[in-house]
C-alpha cells in the first residue's frame, strides 16, 4: 500500500450537486485502503450547504471495506444516519460491500474505554503485588519442607534417578563456569589487595585478605549469583514450559506427584550441590590469588601456602559453606515456584524467568546480610 504523492484534486474522488431537497454526492475513482487519506481530505473539502440525501456510486471503479467505512463515517460525522440516505447506481458488488459495512457500523463507532491509572495507584499496585509474591514464596517454602519431610518418613518416595540427573545438571555441569569465574576473581582480588599492601610492605597479608574475604563472603555470594542465573532461570523455564504444554497435568493424572517428580529432585540437588560449588570456588579463588601473587607481587607459592595455613581458620571456611545450602534453598524454591505459576500466556515464561533471576540475586544478598549479623552476634 505505498501511497504516491497526492496529485489528485478533491473532485477526483467526490463531487457534489445540490438541489432542493438536499445534496447528492457523486463518488468516483478507486475507493480503496491505499487512498483513504486522500478520500477523507476530499470529503472534508465538500461544501456542506445542504444536507446530503443521495449518494451516487456509478463512477466508482473500486470500493473496498475501507472505502465504504470512510464514506459512512463521514456521513455519521455530519450527523446523517446512513439509513436515511438513498444509495443509487452502485454496482451489485459495491452495494454488497456497502451493506456489509453499514450492517456493522454500530460496532465500529463505539469508542473503547481507556483506563488510565495514576502514579500513586501504580506504586500501590506494585507494593501489593510484591507482598503477595513474598507471602506466596513463604507458603511454597512450607510446601517444599513438608514434601521433604514426607520423603524422610517414606524414603522410598525419593526418586534417585531424577535427583542424580538434576545433581549432574546443576552441580557437576556448573563446575567449569564456577571454577573459571572464581579463579579470575581470586586473581583480581589479589591484585587489588596487592596494590594497597605493597605500600606498607605488607604483601604477605594478601593471603589473609583473599582467604578470609573469599571463603567467608565472596565465594558463597558469587557462586550463588551464578547459580541463580544458571539454575534458577532454568528451573523456571523448564517447569513453566511443562506447565504450558500440560505435562505437569499429565504427571498428576498418571497418579504421580509433581512435587516428588519435578520439584524435590531440583531443590535437594541444588541444596547439596551449592556447598560443593562454593568449595570449588574457595579453592580456585585461592589458586588464582596465589598465582597472581607469585607472578606480580613477589610472593612465591610456598610462602603463600604457609601463610594460608595460618590465616585460614576452620571457622571462616565453615561460615562460607554454611551459607550455601540456605542460598540454594531460596534460589531453588523461587525458581521452581515461578515456573509452576506460569499459566496460559507464553509471555509469562520470559517475564517469570527474568523475575526469578532478580529475586534469586536479591534474596542471596539479603540473606548474606542476615548471616553477617548472625555470625557477628555468635562471635564466629
Amino acid at each position, binding site marked *: 500500500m505505498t501511497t504516491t504523492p497526492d496529485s489528485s484534486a478533491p473532485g477526483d474522488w467526490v463531487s457534489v450537486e445540490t438541489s432542493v431537497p438536499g445534496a447528492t454526492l457523486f463518488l468516483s475513482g478507486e475507493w480503496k485502503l491505499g487512498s483513504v*487519506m486522500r478520500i477523507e481530505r476530499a470529503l472534508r473539502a465538500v461544501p456542506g450547504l445542504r444536507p446530503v440525501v443521495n449518494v451516487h456510486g456509478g463512477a466508482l471503479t473500486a470500493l473496498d471495506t475501507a472505502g465504504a467505512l470512510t464514506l459512512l463515517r463521514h456521513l455519521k460525522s455530519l450527523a446523517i444516519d446512513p439509513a436515511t440516505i438513498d444509495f443509487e447506481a452502485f454496482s451489485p458488488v459495491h452495494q454488497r460491500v456497502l451493506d456489509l459495512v453499514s450492517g456493522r457500523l454500530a460496532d465500529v463507532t*463505539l469508542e*473503547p474505554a481507556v483506563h488510565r491509572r495514576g502514579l500513586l495507584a501504580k506504586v500501590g499496585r506494585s507494593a501489593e503485588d510484591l507482598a503477595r509474591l513474598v507471602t506466596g514464596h513463604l507458603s511454597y517454602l512450607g510446601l517444599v519442607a513438608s514434601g521433604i519431610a514426607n520423603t524422610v518418613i517414606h524414603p522410598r518416595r525419593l526418586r534417585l534417578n531424577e535427583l542424580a540427573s538434576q545433581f549432574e545438571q546443576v552441580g557437576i555441569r556448573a563446575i567449569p563456569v564456577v571454577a573459571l569465574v572464581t579463579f579470575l576473581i581470586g586473581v583480581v582480588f589479589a591484585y587489588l589487595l596487592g596494590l594497597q599492601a605493597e605500600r606498607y610492605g605488607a604483601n604477605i597479608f594478601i593471603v589473609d585478605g583473599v582467604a578470609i574475604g573469599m571463603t567467608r563472603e565472596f565465594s558463597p555470594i558469587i557462586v550463588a549469583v551464578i547459580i541463580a542465573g544458571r539454575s534458577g532461570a532454568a528451573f523456571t523455564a523448564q517447569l513453566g514450559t511443562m506447565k504450558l504444554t500440560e505435562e505437569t497435568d499429565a504427571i498428576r493424572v498418571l497418579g504421580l506427584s509433581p512435587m516428588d517428580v519435578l520439584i524435590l529432585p531440583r531443590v535437594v540437588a541444588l541444596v547439596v550441590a551449592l556447598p560443593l560449588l562454593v568449595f570449588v570456588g574457595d579453592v580456585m579463588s585461592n589458586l588464582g590469588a596465589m598465582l597472581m601473587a607469585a607472578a606480580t607481587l613477589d610472593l612465591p607459592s610456598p610462602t603463600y601456602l604457609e601463610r594460608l595455613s595460618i590465616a585460614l581458620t576452620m571457622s571462616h571456611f565453615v561460615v562460607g559453606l554454611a551459607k550455601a545450602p540456605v542460598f540454594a534453598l531460596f534460589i531453588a524454591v523461587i525458581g521452581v515456584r515461578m515456573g509452576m505459576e506460569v499459566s496460559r500466556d*507464553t509471555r509469562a515464561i520470559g517475564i517469570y524467568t527474568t523475575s526469578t533471576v532478580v529475586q534469586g540475586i536479591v534474596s542471596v544478598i539479603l540473606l548474606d546480610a542476615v548471616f553477617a549479623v548472625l555470625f557477628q552476634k555468635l562471635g564466629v
Partner: protein
Amino acid sequence: MGRPGDTDMIGNAVIDVENVVTRFGRQTVHNGVSFSVGRAELVALIGGSGTGKSVLLREIIGLVRPSAGRIRVLGVDVAGAPAAELAAVRRRFGMMFQDGALFSSLDVAHNVAVPLFEHTDLPPESVWPLVRLRIALAGLPPETGAKMPSELSGGMRKRAAIARALALEPEVIFLDEPTSGLDPITARAFDKLMRFLVDDLGITVFLVTHDLDTLLTVVDRLIVLANGKVIGDGPVSDVMALDDPWVRSYFAVRTMGTTGSERGEHGT
C-alpha cells in the same frame, strides 16, 4: 469479483503451483505437485497425515523454499523473488495459522492494527475504526478488541487471526486447519465466514483441512495430495468419485450433503 476460476487481469491464476518437489534430507515429500487456483474460489487441500500439506502451504506463502518447481502467488514467484517484491505481495494476502499465532504481548485490537500501522501511513484515528470493522467482520463482539490473546477461547483466537489477516483488504487468504479443535457449532459458523469472504468480499480462500463438513458444504474445489503428487483436483463431487482407496475411505463416512444424520442441505 470474478466468477470462480477466473484468472486475474494479467492472465495468471491467483495461486499457481508448478511441479513442486520438496526434499528433506533423503525424504521426498512432494514429487511434482501442480495445481492452480483462480479468483474468488474456495479451495481446500486435503491429504493423509504426513503428506506434506502444511509444508506445501508454507511454501506457497514463502516461508519454506521447495527443492524444485515454481510457486507463483498473484504473479510473484514467492521462492525466488527479491525481498521487496516478496514483501509487497505479502501485503496482498493474509494467513491464518492453526492456533492464530497472535502476538501474545498485544491485545486483539493492536494485533489487528499491526499490518495497518506497518504498511500504511494512516494515522491512528483512521486505523482504529478500520480495526473495529475487521473485528466485526470476523464475527467478534466489539469488546474483544481489549482482550489479550491468552484470554480468548480457541474459536475466538482463530477469528481474531482472521481479523488480522483481513487488515489490508487482501485478495487471498490462506488458512491452516481453521476448524480444528472447534465445537461443531463454531466450526460451521467458521465455514459460513469463509464462504462470506469469498462471496461478499471476493477474496480467494485456500485452506488445508481435515474437516469433512467443511469439504462437503462450502468448498468449491478440492485438491487431494497423496504420495507426493496431486491425485485429485476438481469439484467435491468429482473428487469423491475417484477410484482411489484412500479417497474412498476418507469419504466413506459421508455422502455429499449429509452429516450421517438426516440433514440434506448444502451449507452455502
